[in-house]
């Protein structure tokens, strides 16, 4: 007989995690599809009862998104414009039904290369807060996810929150999703971009991430560097010349590697332009 536990406090949850292997359950929107109609053979630690894991708060230096915060809650939270890409992604994760249940941390811990939540968090330099009974680790999100369905989460750890440094909450951002249909679709590719413009339209900061074009979503650091100091009008040209060596797309049922390579450049350009334009308009490619 497998075990099921639904602790009410973080301490209880961490105590249970220190005792053995558990499958951590939050929104369950990836859990049940993976289970299919097979019997449940894992012990389940249900964190839905831990109230402190829910909600978006602010400290002196960070915005903090609780692990169990749903995508609908992210969408409704009053947040600066740099979070626009994250909010646009929140509307594209599965359907409204999924967004109402699925958690931010689940999207990260599931570690799908196509996780829509990851690129918008990468451009905010988000860090993951990992707690165990023995301590606390903070890792940059880009280092936490190590591969397709692989993370650095230890068996005794719980991802408890995401920290977004206030220093990174500058400028405007945008998210562009490319899918083969309008709703409820796994991305062929997606791009998130955040851009900080000086009053003279020069780019003083840029952060760009692309998903579904590598095992883990990637920041495009080289392109970001190339953009800084340039004028808003030069975006197309600079993106067109960028190597995008960070990307290593593969062929799959959703699109060819070659297609992804070409499309990624295009949606990066659109995300940058949209972010630079500060447009609230949602661009679903």
């Amino acid at each position: 007989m497998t075990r099921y536990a639904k602790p009410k406090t973080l301490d209880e949850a961490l105590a249970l995690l220190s005792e053995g292997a558990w499958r951590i359950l939050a929104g369950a929107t990836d859990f049940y599809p993976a289970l299919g109609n097979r019997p449940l053979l894992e012990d389940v630690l249900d964190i839905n009862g831990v109230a402190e894991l829910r909600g978006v708060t602010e400290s002196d230096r960070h915005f903090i998104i609780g692990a169990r915060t749903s995508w609908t809650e992210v969408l409704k939270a009053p947040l600066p414009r740099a979070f626009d890409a994250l909010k646009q992604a929140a509307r594209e994760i599965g359907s409204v039904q999924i967004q109402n249940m699925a958690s931010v941390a689940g999207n990260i811990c599931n570690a799908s290369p196509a996780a829509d939540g990851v690129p918008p968090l990468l451009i905010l330099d988000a860090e993951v807060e990992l707690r165990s009974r023995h301590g606390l680790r903070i890792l940059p999100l880009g280092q936490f996810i190590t591969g397709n369905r692989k993370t650095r989460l230890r068996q005794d750890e719980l991802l408890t929150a995401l920290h977004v440094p206030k220093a990174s909450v500058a400028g405007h951002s945008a998210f562009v999703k490319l899918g083969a249909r309008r709703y409820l679709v796994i991305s062929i590719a997606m791009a998130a971009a955040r851009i900080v413009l000086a009053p003279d339209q020069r780019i003083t900061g840029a952060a760009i991430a692309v998903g579904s074009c590598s095992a883990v979503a990637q920041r495009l650091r080289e392109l970001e560097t190339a953009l800084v100091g340039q004028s808003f009008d030069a975006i197309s040209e600079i993106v067109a010349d960028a190597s995008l060596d960070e990307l290593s797309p593969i062929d799959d049922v959703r699109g060819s590697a070659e297609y992804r390579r070409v499309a990624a450049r295009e949606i990066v350009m659109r995300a940058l332009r949209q972010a630079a334009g500060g447009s609230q308009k949602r661009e679903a490619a």
Partner: protein
Amino acid sequence: MKTDRAPISFTVNGAPVSVSAAPMRRLSSILREDLRLTGTKVGCDAGDCGACTVLLDGEPVCACLLPAASVEGASVRTVEGLSHGGLSALQASFLAHGAAQCGICTPGLLVTATALLERNARPGEDDVQDALGGILCRCTGYRKIAQAVMEAHRYLAPHLDGSAASLDFRLPPPGHAVGASPVRLDGVPKVTGEEKFGADSFPEDALVVLVIRSPHHHAEFSFGDLDTYVADNAGVAGVFTASDIPGINSFGVIPPFADQPALAEGTTRFRGEAIALVACENWAARQIDLSRFPVRWRELPATMDPEEALAAEAIHASRPGNVLVRGLVERGEPEAALENAACVVSGSIETSYVEHAYIEPEAGYAFVAGDTLTVVACTQAPHLDRDDTARVLGLPPEKVRILPTATGGGFGSKIDLSLQPLIGLVALKTGRQAALAYSRNESMASTTKRHPASMRATIGADTDGTVLGMVFSGEFNTGAYASFGPTVANRVPVHASGPYVTPHYRATARAIHTNGPVSGAFRGFGVPQATLMQETLFDDLANQLGIDRLQLRLKNALRNGSETVTGHRLEAGVGIAECLQALTPHWARALADAERLNATSHGTKRGIGIASCWYGCGNTSLPNPSTIKLGISPVGKVVLHQGAVDIGQGANTVIAQIAADALGLALGDFELKGADTAITPDAGKTSASRQTYVSGKAAEKAARELRQQILRFANVSPQASLQLENALLLVNEGGERRRINLARLAADGDGLVFSAQESYDPPTAPLDAKGQGKPYAVYGYGAQIAELDVDLALGTVKLVKITAAHDVGRAINPLLAEGQIEGGIAQGIGMALMEEYITGRTENLHDYLIPTIGDVPPIETILVEVPDPEGPFGAKGLGEHVLIPTAPAILNAIRHATGVLVTKVPATPSRILAAIRAAGSLP
């Protein structure tokens, strides 16, 4: 805390409930099984279809993804709680707009839209799309759903209590049923959640049947110790394999080709093929790990490609070269005609496996009572089910009773047997009730698909655009078993010319076996594939000759008096020219729009495409009868034994409308009996666009005969009018009225005091060795325009509008006809742009994509009525026609926008961009 059952308390539709359940049980299962609230449907168990949507504390969530533990203390609202007696305004609006066809997705849509309307009573179309984007519908094309939600506010009841909506069911007066659009007669249960589909009435103590299936495309297998397996697994009542089958272990929709075992014997020929059944108690079913079932597999080399299959070892020993059937239609001297043509165009097109993706997976239960086996399941073809199930189980057909439930979409795949012999076998062997609802995965893996086609064709025309000749060849991947492969191979050559005069013609089609999924019937039987080939070549002709694309089609359109490629002279009722003429102003407007937009737009280009269809209704040169019985009951109802299975398309309403006018009584007096094989005669299978025409004609004949009987009984002339008033049948003639007290008349075995039964079989003639003859008695015609924008940098397509003109002969029910058109177009959009079934890879509804509410553009329907002398009240078939022109019109529009033809569907962004880049230039 263990995963044992624990008490969980919450409220459902305002009433407190407490159940004892394991904390990880899905809420959908608790609602349906423990609380018997079966209005919440299960379509995928993965959050991909939204059919199970309920409101959790007011917010839509998928009940299939919600652990029981998460509803403790919460408030849950289901479709059963949307109205307090009567109908909610939204439910009324759904009925008024015809927004529910099969009804399986309706509860999820209603629940989700209710949450939207409670926040925003007057939502715009974008609001509705954003709210309903997570719910898949395969029947309607979503247009009427969006309309129903936006206009729900109009159905609020004028009463102060606001409890019930105001809805006019639009029941026509006697003699005016044909041509009216009453609310579908079977509509109310579809919006209240009361409708019982295949999985909605399982007896509580029925055994649950689990199916062991092949994980390989081709494999040998042997079982371990099954007795020990049964003994070691508590709750397992038995394991059944091919050796338990008492009859002939092979079935098939075309008896001479029957080749598919209900349970494979030592070898499997496709991934998903059933090899054994585990029958267990309900409580045990959730704990059984089928991966521990004692079977040893030896994977064998698989033949997946039809080209290779021609040279590979035969998958069925009796079919060397893996060719199941060759079809041929030949007329005149096609090679000579092409040689003499001023303009000759050639091309090739490939299509993919397409999955039917009805939202209701196959489901049903079986039981033995006395010496009769009863199967209660969803189906498109009860009598075929009966005969084939009886054959497999070694029973005389009359000892098998098929009691169809409501069917949550079919589109061709629910004609073939699926679970009927499996649950029947368990019921026979155990004497217990046996129930089975396929998972989404097993539904997709084990049932039929649309044939992937690889086609080549050449068409030649004169300088003025007159088509002189055509040569077509197509290879159709028919998969591991025959199913409807022969039908596709025979139907395609008859239709590959399109509805155009083609004096010199040769078309060949081969159905070739592979170890792929079984290809069977899917809305159009190969004609949608063949039409892609022909209609894209017609655009080549027009472009090369500098002739307007619509005019080229109009010039060559079949007319009354034309001969088809089978030499069938069409005397009357040919409406393709009328369809094209009806589209002409729309075509001019759309082309002008495109020209204007493209003059200034660079990244996105507007493209306009057109394509036509024709389609013969009913079997190809084979008998295809329908029988309809109806009568008058002692309490004054017209009882119609409506055997033409309604899978959402509306036969329950349309057949009744035809019968009502032929009989001369009001539609409101009708009471329907379903296609239960024990009480209702065989009205044939719901396929080949035949129900309105063939069963409708049988209904017309039967109703006229019933009328005659009544007139004779009353000794009045044909001019007399009839009227039912409770148990009185009033016969009025020339100011005189006779009253027939029905309660005093003797009732027959069906409880009817007057009754009639008539059959109708379409008058066709066999095709000769060259495919010449009269394959169908009635054809339907249509043409569609697609307007779309192509994003040249991403290869994505945004549909702007589809305009569809279909010649239905006579629209028996215009609203239902529109629903068929919109739904068929949605499936055509899917085939054109996104649907590609890959066995082992896309066996779910998140990797296999069908259109969502955001993918179907506005559709303008033009119903053209060129009456057919053969059809009832002039009516022709429509169900399949509607899908045929959509995909070719879209491909033609993409080429108009980009200058490139995508030669493999679906035309995914990846393929479109590759084609644009390969061409290296843009228009």
